[in-house]
């Protein structure tokens, strides 16, 4: 898409934003947490437009605002032109690289990404036993592909373990995708997409297509990658034969069984954080809430929830390009709950359905707040201990 942006000729999206009175200002979670004017949606798009037509030099400073976006999509919801800002800014990062204006921390990202993926695959393989993986060769099976951020910590791996236990408890035959110990691939490629690296992404897509060929359904805990694999891989020349579903979509049909098995619990109160890519991305809002309710939990809401959910700061590679801002976003997200008089001084439990959100929010959680993965929470409600 970016190839169509010939220097000197602007595209309608950046042009609309350039003349816009910053009408989606209130929506952007990056700009709310870090009030540098350059990070307001409109300014980020204006910067991109000016770079493209040669009104700004291709320098790191001039291009920096383009990294200030997690691709959360909330601005688009408040734009009557429906400008796809997140996607525009994320893919445009490739142009920055091509012009030597990329942020230094993103240099050689694809290589580092590949190395990390390999490391995570081996972490996963060594953590679980062979029976946790789907049988090699069998056709029509259901595979579980945990998000890369789950595999990056012991805490995350415990979530994976509980997810598998949850499947078992519900009688669902879904096991870990039998990843090639040397090559994976594990991650669906959202980080590459966040830099607009279509070349590396296409290559990754091909490897996934091969790795997942024998599955009918692949369940993933990372909603960003679900969206990416569902909608984008085909365009990159690697259509997937498997149906890619998010964990909560996979569990949704079994909500009643979950309720029966959970019985009536003590009714703990949890706040559900809608991951941007699950809610606005895949349109899944109710399934996770119903699952939590079935497990006997009362779900309380953030002020900005459902389609208005505010990004945790984990997306768009922001934790790498603007770590301070990313942390401030997470703190802001949780700070709302801590400041809410309805919550008094009681401990606060936040549940989410995305490993990246969990990781991002978890890092910012105070002693009072605990951030949990939905599958883990459900598993424990069923009394499954690992």
């Amino acid at each position: 898409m970016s190839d169509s942006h010939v220097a000197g000729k602007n595209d309608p999206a950046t042009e609309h934003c350039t003349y816009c009175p910053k009408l989606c200002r209130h929506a952007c979670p990056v700009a709310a947490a870090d009030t540098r004017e350059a990070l307001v949606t409109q300014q980020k798009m204006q910067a991109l437009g000016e770079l493209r037509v040669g009104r700004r030099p291709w320098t790191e400073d001039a291009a920096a605002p383009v990294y200030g976006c997690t691709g959360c999509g909330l601005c688009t919801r408040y734009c009557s032109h429906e400008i796809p800002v997140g996607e525009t800014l994320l893919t445009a990062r490739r142009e920055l690289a091509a012009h030597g204006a990329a942020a230094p921390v993103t240099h050689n990202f694809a290589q580092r990404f590949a190395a990390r993926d390999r490391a995570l695959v081996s972490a996963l393989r060594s953590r679980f036993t062979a029976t946790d993986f789907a049988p090699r060769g069998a056709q029509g099976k259901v595979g579980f592909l945990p998000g890369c951020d789950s595999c990056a910590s012991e805490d995350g791996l415990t979530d994976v373990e509980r997810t598998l236990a949850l499947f078992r408890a519900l009688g669902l035959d879904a096991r870990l995708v039998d990843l090639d110990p040397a090559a994976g691939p594990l991650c669906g490629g959202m980080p590459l997409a966040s830099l607009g690296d279509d070349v590396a992404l296409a290559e990754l897509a091909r490897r996934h297509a091969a790795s997942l060929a024998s599955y009918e359904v692949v369940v993933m805990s990372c909603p960003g990658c679900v969206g990416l694999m569902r909608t984008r891989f085909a365009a990159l020349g690697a259509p997937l034969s498997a149906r890619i579903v998010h964990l909560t979509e996979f569990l949704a049909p079994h909500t009643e069984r979950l309720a029966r098995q959970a019985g009536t619990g003590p009714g703990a109160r949890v706040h559900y954080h809608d991951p941007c890519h699950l809610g606005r991305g895949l349109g899944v809002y109710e399934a996770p809430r119903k699952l939590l309710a079935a497990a006997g939990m009362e779900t309380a809401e953030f002020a900005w929830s459902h389609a208005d959910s505010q990004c945790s700061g984990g997306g768009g590679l922001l934790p790498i390009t603007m770590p301070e801002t990313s942390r401030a976003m997470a703190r802001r997200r949780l700070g709302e709950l801590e400041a809410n008089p309805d919550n008094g001084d009681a401990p606060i439990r936040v549940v989410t359905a995305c490993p990246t959100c969990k990781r991002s929010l978890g890092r910012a959680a105070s002693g009072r707040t605990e951030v949990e993965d939905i599958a883990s929470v459900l598993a424990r409600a069923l009394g499954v201990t690992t």
Partner: protein
Amino acid sequence: MIHPSQAERLASACAKVVGSARVSRATSDRHSYARDQWPRVLIGMRDGKGAPFPPDVVAWPTTTAEVAALVRVARELGVPVVPYAAGSGVCGGAAPIYGGLVIDTKPMDRILALDTRNATVRVQAGMNGERFERELNRRGFTLGHFPSSIYCSTVGGWLAARGAGQMSTKYGKIEDMTLGLEVVTGRGDIVRTGVDGRAAAGPDWTQVFIGSEGTLGVLTEGTLRLRRSPELRILRGFELPTVDAGMQAIRAVMQRGLRPAVVRLYDPFDSFLAMRHRAEAAAAAGDEGAAYVPTPPPAKGLAGRLARSLASARQRVQDTLLAGALARPRILNPVLDSLVPKLARKGCLLIVGCEGAARRTEVEARLTFAELERAGGRDLGEGPGLNWLKKRYAVSYRQSTLFAAGAFADTMEVASTWERLPDLYESVREAIGRHAMVMAHFSHAYPEGCSIYFTFVAHAPDRARMERVYDAIWSDGLSAAARAGGTISHHHGVGLSKGAFMAEEHRESMAILRSLKSVMDPDGVMNPGKLGLAAPPRLTDVARAS
């Protein structure tokens, strides 16, 4: 722009106050504060003149004490200080025309105390409007302040510019809901107004700082009166045969002691557009708006649609209906006058709505509608009202399309007592109509008068001529307003663009304003060149200097 060595000193002094991470001299930061939403600057952007007034240094303080220290630093160095909030002002108020230090108020965006028993709130100036209102709603309250820019403006900006929301007829303008302020004066002192309320002797300082547009100090906090979230909202459309009849009808309602939340009377051309919107909206009904798709998109679909809409806007601007309008407004406006009512087969559309506690609202709505019918209004049912509510912020988005298509648009909001209102309407309309296509609506009604909101669109072949037309519109329009006994601004403020008309607006009373300025800001560092306090520089000179 100040001297680079001075800027260096300024930056390091500021860093001592707020820490180096909260001060910047980076070009990308400076350029992002180089303008507000003054449309005249947007005209220049097509030529790549997007950042006409960059400050030298930007600082992001997080406490009032830091703001005070920053002002003192600037004062010591004798450099300009410009409070910059969301930059949604449309008069160049937040533009750092002489460079210097920009103090971004947005990091100070917390609700400090919400007194639910007494329905008051203490809120920091940098709080975003929509975020604020939603938080209040969640707690069962509303501020009742809904400027069209609510998404992209701040509480401090509302106070600094004396803003008005779409429901000001019931809830009042921002100055009517403010109980007190915290202010850092141009001397760097922290003062509070509204202490002891009306029992205090001396001037009402709250009303002195409201509207001061950063020229007397930085507003850091406001204490505002809230209302409970409305239990009931009843909206209606009425059709009035003429603008005059519409004005009479609104006046009758207001003078009967009724206080609808919304009253909007569109003149025929504005009515025509409003009704067309309605038709479009009806046609699009059922379309819930596409869900956000995180990965490549509707590449064809959306990008294609945007490009098409832009192309067709351009088309309209360049060669069709609008072209006639924009190039020959003098001929076209009268033609529209005679054509549009026929086209629309309607008179003037009036949107009216009551809201509040259920019981009183029901009565008030019934009486209001009855009064409008008595005044010759034809009830169009709730459809037009609901549609207005749904689309009430939508019109702002059209600016992009118009500018991107090569035209420009702006608005002029004047006000007067009822006695002078018809004359004000005719004269300003005629004055703007010499240069641009113009339409108007009447909103923000009071028992004693009303404001008129003119929207105009024009086009010229190149930037220089475009700016000439733009300046002529404002100069003729505001002179006409002043001659007709109206005020030159009801809620957008003065900023840079109306400074030259302040003498006409206030005449001898400018002496008081000047005294306030020299008392609050003896060194003249606060937002210099604004509010008509000093002759604003010739814009071309400033642009060249930057």
